[in-house]
């Protein structure tokens, strides 16, 4: 538990609050004073972060996700640079295994010619996996370290931030729309939305059904990952409320189980991305 013995409630909500940089409106009552004009600042509490509304950005989410994404790009690009048709060794072997795994899965799902889908799936898989992996770092380590450095909020698992998962899902959604229109034309895509599953006379009903179905794709992508990781993180936080000599009894089995979850969730996100794009290509 955190040093100054905060209440359980405070401890949990502290762990679930992002380091938020955003705009507070003029007249906002803060730290006993009142803001004279609207101000961009780092939120001092969960309430302030919530009051910033849409004009705010989660610095911790951005930092960790970009750090992990850069780590992925750097390490894989290094392996790619060293890649030859000779005998692979060490890290290159691992990278090739991952690439081969993704390639096999993409080939079995996506049968059209497209050189974006496979690297997209690889990026999603590895990036999401790395983000999820941060969940296995004991919940207090990095936040306590940040506190020493003067940063009071630090949520280290980007995929427990719905913005991160929804950001990726939004990207996938845009690609779904793009490829649908590219493959079928605007008319074809609209016809697909309007003239099925029922005949033309049920156009409004069809449109409603298909659009819900379309929008459900990114939302389910985003919320599935977010929900799983948020819940997993929550369990770790609750376990860390136990006396320290008992924590391992629960945290070790949960962490081992979590290894499966984080891999599975990364895999599901990547595969569903490919499936959705394959559906965008197919004519129904």
């Amino acid at each position, binding site marked *: 538990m955190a040093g100054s013995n905060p209440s359980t409630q405070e401890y949990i909500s502290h762990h679930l609050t992002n380091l938020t940089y955003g705009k507070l409106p003029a007249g906002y009552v803060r730290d006993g004073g009142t803001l004279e004009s609207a101000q961009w600042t780092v939120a001092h509490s969960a309430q302030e972060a919530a009051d910033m509304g849409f004009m705010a950005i989660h610095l911790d989410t951005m930092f960790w996700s970009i750090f992990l994404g850069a780590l992925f790009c750097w390490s894989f690009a290094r392996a*790619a640079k060293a*890649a030859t048709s000779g005998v692979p060794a060490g890290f290159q072997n691992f990278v090739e295994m991952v690439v081969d795994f993704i390639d096999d899965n993409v080939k079995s799902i996506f049968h059209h010619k497209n050189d974006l889908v496979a690297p997209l799936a690889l990026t999603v898989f590895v990036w999401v996996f790395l983000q999820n992996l941060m969940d296995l770092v004991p919940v207090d380590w990095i936040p306590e370290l940040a506190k020493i450095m003067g940063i009071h909020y630090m949520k280290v698992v980007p995929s427990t931030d719905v913005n991160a998962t929804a950001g990726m899902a939004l990207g996938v959604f845009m690609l779904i729309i793009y490829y649908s229109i590219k493959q079928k034309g605007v008319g074809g895509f609209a016809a697909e939305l309007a003239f099925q599953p029922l005949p033309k006379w049920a156009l409004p009903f069809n449109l409603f059904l298909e659009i819900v179905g379309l929008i459900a794709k990114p939302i389910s992508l985003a919320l599935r990952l977010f929900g799983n990781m948020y819940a997993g993180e929550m369990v770790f936080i609750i376990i860390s409320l136990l006396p320290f000599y008992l924590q391992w009894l629960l945290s070790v089995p949960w962490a081992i189980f979590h290894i499966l979850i984080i891999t599975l969730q990364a895999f599901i996100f990547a595969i569903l991305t490919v499936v959705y794009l394959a559906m965008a290509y197919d004519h129904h």
Partner: protein
Amino acid sequence: MNINLTLFAQLISFAIFVWFCKTYVWPPIILAMQERQKQIADGLNAAEKAGQDLEVAHQKIDAQLVEAKAQASQILDQANKRAAQIVDEAKEAALTEGQRLKDAAQSDIEQEVNRAKEQLRAQVASLALIGAEKVLEASIDEAAHKDIVNKLAANL
């Protein structure tokens, strides 16, 4: 669960990472793997082909061996035949030579006999003359009677 600008910031970083992966990570790795796959396939094909070649070479060797054996036995047969022929020829030559030698010896002997007979005849003639001289004790014209005595001797 505050939706805010982070959403778009994440969207942008996602796009950048995907672009990076598509440009710098995926193609070289896939290329290297495909190339390796091709090399391995080529290697396996070459090994298979070498195996087939070996099989063919074995068959060729077997065929050559059979041929060589046949040739060898043929040569042996010929040699045997030739040897027999040479022996036969030698035998024949020896027989002929023997016959020739025998004939020569025969003729020599006959000549010797004839010569001996001639001498004998001559001596018998002269002996007969001497005998006749003694018997007659008279002088006979040697020249006149020589023909008679020679005729006598020729009848011996």
